[in-house]
């Protein structure tokens, strides 16, 4: 019964395809899966927007949206209708073709990432051998879309926002990749399906998720930081800092194109959380062995929602960084730590499986973290200024 529930979507697909001639089955199967992904994730996006507005409100002791539907749940629908009925303005001096293409490219690139995400047992659209590589390659395309938007708008705020976005995304792309490489090193595979399977076994009823190892924990924290920056979320939301740059690279977008950018941003958040959950939190595997009967896709989407909530929580807590702080943090703190973590992961791989490697690996990481925090991130103190010529 629970096995059936676990595989319900797979069985449903096979049942539907059973009515078709064998020649058509692979093609129609792919189209059906794509259609489901294209419908489900925007639905989750709508829910996320509601959750974000509600959660941020509660963190600021407000109520959040509560007018449209019960608890304001239909607010995203109202927002969608509003953005559809708005006038689509294109600046006279804008490069119309690129201006039109930018949001499309962004959304397409982000959707491509979902193709390789294992969302449950046997639930992956394309089981590639190098799916992690594919994911990051496609994910990097969104930078192009952002710069297309900023450049084609012919607006100084758009351009500044796009420059910031590209600088930030390229800077954090490196630690993002580096922090995921340790997982590949230990698993010995770039396939996300294999990575989940490698974590899906239990000792004393507890899972072997990579987050429960010293290098995995460090990599997860670094990955989370880089992912936050990569998706332009607060506190790294400089590219769209409303107080400085109107709306950043999508200043000149209105109506549904604006909504597409919004959608692209949240989908990027969802997919990067999905990859994070797959790499470090065991993907669709359950957190306790006795809970294995719960359908795998519930665990995957549950982990997704938890990480979205953490994103919202961070946004409700932290103020925006300054550009130089952002860059210093990426190159002077996150990147060295990810490089060190590669070394620690290698050490873990080649040491014997006993308590010693836990102590050694944890000690190295903790010591370097403390040292870097003290010295590397030392604040420059500006004392009272002395003007020698005036003395």
């Amino acid at each position, binding site marked *: 019964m629970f096995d059936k529930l676990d595989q319900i979507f797979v069985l449903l697909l096979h049942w539907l395809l059973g009515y078709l001639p064998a020649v058509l089955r692979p093609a129609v199967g792919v189209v059906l899966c794509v259609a489901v992904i294209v419908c489900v994730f925007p639905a989750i996006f709508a829910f996320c927007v509601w959750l974000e507005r509600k959660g941020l409100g*509660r963190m600021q*002791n407000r*109520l959040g949206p509560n007018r449209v539907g019960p608890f304001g749940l239909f607010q995203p629908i109202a927002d969608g209708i509003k953005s559809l009925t708005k006038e689509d303005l294109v600046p006279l001096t804008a490069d119309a073709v690129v201006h039109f293409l930018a949001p499309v490219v962004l959304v397409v690139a982000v959707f491509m990432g979902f193709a390789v995400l294992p969302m449950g047992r046997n639930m992956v659209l394309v089981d590639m051998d190098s799916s992690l590589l594919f994911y990051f390659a496609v994910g990097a395309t969104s930078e192009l879309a952002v710069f297309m938007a900023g450049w084609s708008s012919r607006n100084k705020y758009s351009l500044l926002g796009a420059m910031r976005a590209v600088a930030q995304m390229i800077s954090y792309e490196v630690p993002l990749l580096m922090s995921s490489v340790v997982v590949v090193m230990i698993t010995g595979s770039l396939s996300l399906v294999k990575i989940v399977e490698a974590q899906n076994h239990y000792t004393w009823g507890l899972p072997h998720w990579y987050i429960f190892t010293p290098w995995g924990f460090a990599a997860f924290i670094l990955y989370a930081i880089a992912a936050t920056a990569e998706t332009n979320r607060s506190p790294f939301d400089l590219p769209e800092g409303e107080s400085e740059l109107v709306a950043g690279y999508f200043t000149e977008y209105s109506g549904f194109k604006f909504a597409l950018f919004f959608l692209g941003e949240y989908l990027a958040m969802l997919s990067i959380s999905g990859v994070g959950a797959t790499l470090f939190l065991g993907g669709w595997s359950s957190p306790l062995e006795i809970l294995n009967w719960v359908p795998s896709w519930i665990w995957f989407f549950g982990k997704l929602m938890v990480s979205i909530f953490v994103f919202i929580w961070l946004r409700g*807590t*932290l103020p925006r960084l300054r550009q130089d702080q952002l860059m210093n943090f990426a190159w002077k703190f996150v990147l060295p730590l990810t490089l060190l973590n590669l070394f620690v992961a290698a050490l873990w791989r080649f040491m014997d499986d006993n308590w010693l490697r836990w102590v050694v690996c944890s000690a190295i990481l903790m010591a370097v973290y403390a040292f870097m*925090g003290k010295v590397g991130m030392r604040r420059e103190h500006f004392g009272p200024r002395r003007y020698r010529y005036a003395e």
Partner: protein
Amino acid sequence: MLGEGILKGLLETAKNFAGSYVSKERLTTVQYPEERLAPIENSRVFPFLVYDVENRDGGGPDWEAGLRCTSCQICEKECPPKCIFIEKSKDKKLDYLGKAQFYPTRFDIDISVCMSCQICVEVCPFESIKMDKHFEQSTDDRFGGLLLDREQLAKPNEYYHQIHPIEAAEVDARLAAAKAVFDAKAKAAAAAAAAKAAAAEVAAQAVPKPASEGA
């Protein structure tokens, strides 16, 4: 250690998040159209014209006769966004002192332009224009609907007492004092005139008129 501050901050927002579901005191939001807070004494939006209900000069409806405005047009000149338009009358009517004054035949305020700065109130020497509290002025006609004429602007002194009780009492006291001074002066002038007339009469009686006798 690095990151301690972030954890502290996360704890604080988590407390807020959880607390807002538990304690009602945390949520200060007022659900506006259904609930509302009573406006404070000094709140203000858009000016209105005060009229006295005690009709002094007759002619026209109550509000028109009792309007304190003498169309001196100071407010029109001082208004920074120039949202006031006044047309002065040709004839005069008696004001609350009993003096003959001009009155406005047209007094328009475009509240789509008005910025509620209260400068018109500050400069008015006749205490005739005051700030209102009625802010729900939205309309579907953005030209005519937001151009208030003098009939829409005119509101009785009782209304002024209702919305700004302290300020209105001060204004009334000031007007009463001015009226007392004016009346005293008028009485003194009348007495002086009477005394003069009486003296002239006495003199006329004391000195016989030779011309009349001669006639």
